[in-house]
Structures are given as structure tokens and as C-alpha cells.
């Protein structure tokens, strides 16, 4: 019960602090709107592609021959024109020489698509169309024939890869910055967390808390929970504003997205308290947190879109959380989210354990 009382007190004092409110609510909303507007064109995925030519060859007894003829007729409306090939080897050579965007071979097992790796946009478009055709055919004929498979042949490396359905959904600027500003705001909550304990000393209320019949652990946990709850409330408000006022896309897995963000709040709070407890003064703690904030923000996709987050960049919490959320929204992929959740919780528990040990050894708070 004491933990709840302390958590409620923590939430009240945070909510009544205008500076905290501005940085937790006002600033991210302003930045989402500003960056979403400024970088509107940088996130456009529309590219004009001219006519595309594809060679095809059909083996006898191809079960989906009739459907493929219909598909080719439809494709011509999208300026993808199919021409019958005379010779497979000659066709592949023509693709390699960029005379054609691809070569398709049909047989009873499925579709083999050869594309020139130098012409990825056209090749990807054709590949996407073939994918759709394969999917639709599989759905329509699933009970009658074997599943169709689309095999993509890379001309450059000369190997075969099985393609997956490619999502053509990409975030707009407002979508992207809604995610990145929210995660940045949460991580910057570390700056408030470093004062969770020292603020009590500054107000002289630390002595009152210690002389009360409660343990240091209760005080500590009350403060952690209070901080996590109020910061969760702040980011939920940001999500609601960005989703319903700015029309940002938060995807179909919002519950999991929120859970990932809660674990980030937990991480930010734990990082704050450990910095607060190992540094000797609030001034030093503030300096440390400024360095952490600058480094994590610069080496993350907070203000620009990072195409590839790997290696040392993945060690940045902003990157692992951003990637997890974008994968949840745009690829329906839960694997990076699971990793981010585990990382956030494990690192947080480690930080809290060290802080509790240090606090236990200290006289007073």
C-alpha cells in the first residue's frame, strides 16, 4: 500500500510540473507535426517507371496456362508487356543486356522469374505482380493442383531464391516521426528519472520518508512504478494525438507496440536511477545524461530514416525499439519486437539491481 501511495505522489508531482509536461507531451507533438511536414517529400515512395518488357516461355502441360494468359492481358494495362521467347538461353542473355526487364518460364511446377539485378525497380514491380498472381492462383486452385511456387533467379549471382510476399506499405513522414519522436521522448524520460531519489534529498523530504515505518525498497519501487505509469500515460496521449489528429499509422498491432514502449519507459527509468545513484551530484548526472541523449539520438534513426540498423548501431536502445515498432506496423513481424522487449526488461532489471544494492549500502536515501 505504501508503494501505491508513493507511486501516486510521484505521478501527481510529475503531472503538476509544467516543464515535465512540456517535454513529455508538448515537445513530441510539436516535433511530430513539424518534422512530418518538413520531410513530407523525403518519405514519398512513388517512382515513375516507363513501359516494362518481359519475355516468357511456356512449357507444354502447364496447368495454369489459361490463367497466365489472362494475367498477361491485365498486365498490359499496367504497361507491362509480355513477349513470347524463342530460346531460353537467348532470352536470359537479353535480360542480362538490359534489353528486357525479366524473363519468365512457366512449367507444371510453377513460375521461374529471371531478373537483372541492375534493374531492381522494374524487376521488383514484375516480381510483385507475379507474386500476386501466384497467390491468387493458389487460393483459387488449392484443392485441385499443387501449390504454385515463384522462383526468382538472380542473373548476377546466378542463384535461386524463393521470394516472399513483399509488402508495399511504407511509412509516410508523419508515420515515421510519430514513432521516432515518441521513442525519443520516452528515452529522454531518463533525465527526469535521475532525480527520482536526489529530488527527495533536495526537498529535504528524504529524511521524512526514511523515518517513516517503510523500507527503502518500498520507497524505491513506489518511485519506479510512479515514474513508469506517468510516462506511459504521457506516451499514450502522444499516440492518441498522432493517431487521431495527425492520422499517423500505428498499425494493427497497437497493443504489442504499446507493450514495447512500456518496456522502453522501464528501461529509461532504470537508466535514470542508476545514473542518479552512481554519480556524486545532480550536475554530474545531468552531464552524463546529456551525453547519453546526444549519442543515442545522433546514432539512431530519430531524425532521419536509417535503412539498415545492424552491428554497433543495434546497441542503441532507440534503434532496437524503433525497428521493433516499424516491423510490427509495416511487416507484421513480431521477432524484432520480442527481442526489443527482452533486451529492455533484462537491461532494466540489471540496472535496478545495481541501484538497489547501492541504495541499501547507503545511510539515508
Amino acid at each position, binding site marked *: 500500500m505504501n508503494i501505491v*501511495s508513493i507511486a501516486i505522489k510521484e505521478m*501527481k*508531482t510529475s503531472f*503538476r510540473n509544467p516543464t515535465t509536461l512540456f517535454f513529455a507531451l508538448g515537445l513530441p507533438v510539436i516535433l511530430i507535426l513539424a518534422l512530418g511536414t518538413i520531410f513530407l517529400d523525403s518519405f514519398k515512395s512513388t517512382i515513375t517507371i516507363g513501359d516494362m518488357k518481359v519475355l516468357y516461355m511456356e512449357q507444354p502441360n502447364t496447368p495454369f496456362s489459361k490463367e497466365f494468359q489472362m494475367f498477361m492481358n491485365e498486365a498490359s494495362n499496367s504497361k507491362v508487356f509480355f513477349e513470347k521467347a524463342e530460346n531460353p538461353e537467348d532470352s536470359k542473355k537479353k535480360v542480362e543486356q538490359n534489353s528486357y526487364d525479366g524473363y519468365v518460364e512457366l512449367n507444371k511446377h510453377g513460375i521461374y522469374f529471371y531478373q537483372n539485378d541492375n534493374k531492381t525497380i522494374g524487376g521488383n514491380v514484375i516480381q510483385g505482380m507475379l507474386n500476386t498472381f501466384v497467390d491468387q492462383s493458389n487460393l483459387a486452385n488449392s484443392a485441385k493442383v499443387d501449390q504454385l511456387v515463384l522462383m526468382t533467379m538472380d542473373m548476377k549471382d546466378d542463384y535461386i531464391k524463393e521470394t516472399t510476399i513483399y509488402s508495399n506499405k511504407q511509412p509516410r513522414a508523419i508515420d515515421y516521426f510519430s514513432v521516432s519522436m515518441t521513442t525519443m521522448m520516452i528515452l529522454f524520460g531518463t533525465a527526469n528519472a535521475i532525480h527520482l531519489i536526489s529530488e527527495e534529498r533536495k*526537498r*529535504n*523530504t528524504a529524511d521524512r520518508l526514511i*523515518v517513516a*515505518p517503510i523500507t527503502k525498497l518500498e520507497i524505491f519501487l513506489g518511485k519506479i512504478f510512479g515514474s513508469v505509469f506517468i510516462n506511459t500515460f504521457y506516451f499514450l496521449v502522444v499516440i492518441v494525438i498522432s493517431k487521431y489528429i495527425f492520422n499517423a499509422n500505428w498499425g494493427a498491432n497497437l497493443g504489442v507496440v504499446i507493450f514495447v514502449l512500456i518496456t522502453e519507459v522501464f528501461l529509461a527509468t532504470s537508466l535514470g536511477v542508476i545514473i542518479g545513484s552512481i554519480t556524486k551530484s545532480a550536475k554530474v548526472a545531468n552531464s552524463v545524461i546529456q551525453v547519453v541523449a546526444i549519442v543515442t539520438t545522433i546514432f539512431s534513426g530519430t531524425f532521419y530514416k536509417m535503412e539498415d540498423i545492424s552491428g554497433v548501431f543495434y546497441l542503441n536502445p532507440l534503434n532496437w525499439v524503433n525497428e521493433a515498432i516499424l516491423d510490427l506496423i509495416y511487416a507484421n513481424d513480431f521477432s524484432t519486437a520480442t527481442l526489443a522487449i527482452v533486451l529492455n526488461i533484462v537491461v532494466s532489471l540489471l540496472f535496478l539491481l545495481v541501484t538497489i544494492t547501492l541504495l541499501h549500502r547507503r545511510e539515508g536515501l
Partner: protein
Amino acid sequence: MKVLEMKGLTKKFGDFIAVDNVTLTVAEGEIFGFLGPNGAGKSTSIHMISGLLRSTFGQINILGKDIVKHRKFAKMNIGIVPQDLAIYEDLTVYENVKFFAGLYGLRGSRLKEQVAEALEFVGLSDKHNSYPINFSGGMKRRLNIACAIAHRPKLLIMDEPTVGIDPQTRNYILDSIKKLNKMGSTIIYTSHYMEEVEEICTRIAIVDHGKVIVEGTKEQLQAVVTDKKDIWIEVKSNKNIRAQEIEKIKGVESIQIDERVIKIHSDMDINNLNQIIQYFLSNEIEIRSVEEKSSNLENVFLTLTGRNLRD
């Protein structure tokens, strides 16, 4: 009944001994004064009693129970009014008192009742929804007291609560202490203002360099220095007064020169008043009044330690 017992209490910070083998008892219903200069060990002792610091050696019992073995029991029965304000300026008056009282296990109607009672006692009932950030220093001090008494502690510790406050608030706090005592609270009052301790305390311990120099009622302490007297001479100006010349007069032990009052500490048995007045007249120093005072706690401290309380 003994509300507090300290047995051989010692606190060391490295090589420095802040509290040195202190043994004291405080009985129920007392206002016990801890008198001593800054750095004498008063606050360190108070911090050990209230659980803020661990003792290096010795034992502390609250209501007969060891505070180490019965930490929660001891804490439940102690209230502390710290020297500095210890309130949340972004919580209302009511929320402040309710929060701290709630930590002592009070819930529901009992909590509301005792919070209201504490606010009534400090005269802040009509301000219960106000934020203390807008309060005067005196009102904040009253809230500071309310936060310490709402759970009705058996032992209330007040650690120099009058430092740096205006006379009106100081009088209010001293009156409150007397009232709380009449209502049944045992109080430990630390101060380096001997006038306050003389005014309110029923028993006093004078501490210096971490040790209790003397302990007893005000009368018992004054009896230690019955052979001394103070002569206070009010003058128009202290311009021509030379302390060394007055100290040469037989029986004079020390002299303190304020702007308009000259305080001379002297041997009781030697009648030297005529000689002292003669010094002032011969140096053309205009005397406004002369007063001979019997010994006070300041003198007790001076006699026992050789220095003033505020040195």
C-alpha cells in the same frame, strides 16, 4: 515510563567522533532540551534516534524496545520536525499531510480525521486545498509541523525548528510545543538558542564535542554556576570601551561588547560594580542603565566549556 533511552551511544565518521558515548533517558511527558553549539552532535544524535543514521556503538530504546530489533515499532512512535522544511510544494496542504500520515498505516476515515486534526492544530484548516509554494515562511513551518504530528507520535523530535525564522513564527512554534506537550506528547527539542530551551524545556542536556557535559532541570544546571553573575550595562555608544581594561578589574572573567549593551561575566563573591561603573564614567561613556543578572544557561555553557554557545 522511559520514552527514550540512549546507552553508550557513539557515532564515528572515519576518525571523527560526532557523538561520544552518550547515555541519556527521556521520560514520558517531558520536553527534553538538547542544547549545544553548531557541530556539538545534537543533530547526529537525533538522526540516530529517528533511524536516519546507524550508530557505531551503543543502543537506543524507544518505549523500552531496541530500535534495531523493533525498527517498525520505533518508527511508528516517532515524529520528526526537521530543521529544514520537508514538504512537497506541488502537493496541496491536505495532500502533504495525508501522504506522510498514510505512510504510518493510517487509512480511511481515521486518516481523514487525524489529518484534519493536525491541520486544525497548526491553523491551516482553511488552506487545505492551497499549494504551499505560495505560502509565507511561517505557514510553511506550520505545515512542516502538521506533517510530523498527524500520526500522533508518542515522541516528537524537533530539530532546531526555529533557525532562520521571524519572531512571530518562533513564538508560534514554541507555543505549539507547549500545547502538544500538554496533550500528552513527549518532546525532544534541539537548539543552540538557550533562551528557547530555558523557556520551554523541563529537562536539559548540554552537549559539546559529541559529549553530554551536564544534564538536569534548568535549576539544577544553574546551580552549577551559582558563584557567577552577569552585569549588563546599557550605553549610548560603545566607542571608547576597551575590553582589556575592564577585564583588569578584579572578579571580571569575560566581557562581550554589543552595539549598546556591554555584558560582563563576573565572580559573584567580589563586589566590583562600583569599579566597573567608575571605568565608564572616567572614560566619559554615557550609561543608560545597569542590570545585575543571575547566571543563565549561556553562562553554564561558558563556565563548562570556556566558550559561548554561538562561537
